[in-house]
């Protein structure tokens, strides 16, 4: 709760979002695509932060809902004409929420390492479903030939065929999601979720049902991840089973930890840091051929370094740089 409102975190978050907003005005296709990917991942990591940072639910299967959201784009897009952004977007959220609700009925009964294992198991089942069957071309993945658009009374307001339209839409969604999550976290539900994270026995004694609170948060996070997956798939108009895989779930956790759990802004910092680090380390002209070829190794070392050096991730470091950790009232000295 403290990190959300810390001035240093808010200022940096504003700066990063403004930087993302500026990309269409100076960047080419590559820069724009990277910036849109960052924002899509930020949305995905927000769903992970809601679960881990505020609910204490360490999920290793969040990519399943991200992937389902991506596949919703494929299923809800006509083959030769533009589908509706609203239909596909809301469909992706609904699919993510429904899958999270159904799996959550079982998943949120578990805790700790069992929670990790069960979420991973469900996600791998989803991966296998799309990988080992002919659904959407199986392991080959599937293309969405015409990206969706938002058309009102015959006038196309937003067309995802335009990278700029897509970019600003994703940016707006991230800003709205951040604002909604701040309200949610500060609401009685958000406080109860954090209470359940800290000690669910105490919450039961206060009259709360931790199971229902966890299930609601898990479902919301599923919807958010589904929306992120839909927007991500709209970048290239391509979906594949890898979007449900454990690697992406792990990548999301790395981004969340790197950015700072329980801060919301950290989701944006983590996504931006990891995506940009990857891009830099893969660029032979910047880091040389050897590093570019084995970029995973320096990336891992840098992540370990950041995590060890900055407790609380980037958001934690920013809050310490900015002075006192208590952003409100009479916080800590």
């Amino acid at each position, binding site marked *: *709760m*403290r990190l959300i409102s810390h001035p240093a975190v808010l200022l940096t978050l504003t700066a990063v979002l403004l930087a993302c907003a500026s990309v269409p005005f100076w960047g080419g296709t590559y820069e724009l695509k990277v910036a849109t990917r960052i924002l899509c991942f930020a949305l995905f990591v927000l769903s992970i932060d809601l679960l881990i940072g505020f609910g204490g639910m360490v999920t290793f299967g969040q990519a399943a809902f991200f992937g389902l959201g991506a596949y919703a784009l494929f299923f809800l897009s006509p083959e030769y004409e533009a589908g509706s952004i609203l239909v596909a977007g809301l469909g992706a959220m609904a699919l993510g929420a429904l899958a999270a609700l159904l799996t959550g009925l079982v998943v949120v009964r578990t805790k700790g390492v069992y929670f990790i294992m069960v979420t991973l198991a469900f996600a791998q089942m989803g991966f296998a479903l799309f990988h080992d069957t002919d659904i959407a071309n199986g392991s080959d993945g599937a293309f969405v030939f015409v990206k969706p658009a938002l058309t009102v009374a015959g006038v196309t307001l937003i067309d995802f065929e335009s990278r700029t339209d897509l970019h600003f839409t994703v940016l707006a969604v991230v800003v709205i999601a951040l604002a909604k999550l701040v309200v949610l976290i500060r609401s*009685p539900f958000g*406080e*109860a979720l*954090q*209470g359940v994270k*800290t*000690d669910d*026995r*105490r*919450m*039961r*004694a*206060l*009259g*709360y*049902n*931790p199971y229902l609170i966890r299930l609601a948060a898990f479902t919301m996070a599923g919807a958010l991840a589904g929306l992120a997956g839909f927007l991500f798939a709209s970048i290239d108009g391509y979906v594949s089973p890898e979007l449900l895989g454990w690697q992406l779930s792990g990548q999301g956790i790395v981004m969340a930890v790197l950015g700072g759990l329980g801060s919301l802004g950290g989701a944006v910092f983590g996504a931006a840091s990891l995506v940009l680090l990857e891009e830099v380390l893969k660029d032979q002209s910047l880091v040389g051929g050897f590093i570019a070829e084995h970029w995973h190794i320096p990336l891992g070392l840098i992540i370990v370094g950041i995590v060890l050096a900055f407790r609380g991730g980037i958001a934690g470091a920013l809050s310490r740089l900015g002075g006192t950790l*208590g952003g*409100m*009232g*009479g*916080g*800590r000295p």
Partner: protein
Amino acid sequence: MTPGPALLDLEGLSAGYDGIPVVEDISLAIAPGEVISLMGRNGMGKTTLLKAAMGLIPAMRGRVGIMGVDHSRTPAHKRAAAGLGWVPEGRRIFADLTVVENLEMARRIGPWTPATVFDLFPRLAERKRHYGDTLSGGEQQMLAIGRALLTNPNVLIVDEATEGLAPKIRDEIWETFDTLRHQGLAVIVVDKHLDQLLSLCDRHFVMEKGRIVLSGGREALMADPERLHRFLGV
């Protein structure tokens, strides 16, 4: 016997962990406006009994009645809604929430509101916007009691009420229980300060190896000081 209808009624309650009973065959009841104490050395089952009454651990045998309704199989959150307020040992307030947020989280419709809690503990009113872990031990205990009161309970269960608190703060806490009693609340209190318990509480229950071995008013307890010394180590 209780002076009126029981708000909480335990009958032959047994509970424990992993199938091994820690408390056995406990029967006690508490009426409105009553304050009772649970005494005994460490490890005698006081906290286990309170948790079993609250539904935080399952009962192996026996009955838990709240306001005359059988709640033996109801989960803890429903027992809280039925009228049991719990102040856990060690306060365990939410460190990352402010005083107001800690209180608001527990709030349920009823006469107790954050404002009435601040009337009861003016010290908390001065620290409304402070985070839980910046409060002193005494303030944390006041907050823990205030948080339990905001669930608008009929019975307040307080485990280790004044543990680790300065004498002046302890006195404030004892006075609070007396105030609550006069408002019709029933209070079950676990503490180690025998003198204060004897002067505050209407009845006492002394536990030894998971059973109640001595019970009654102040006179009953003081009638056999040697026995009391054996059970309490005082």
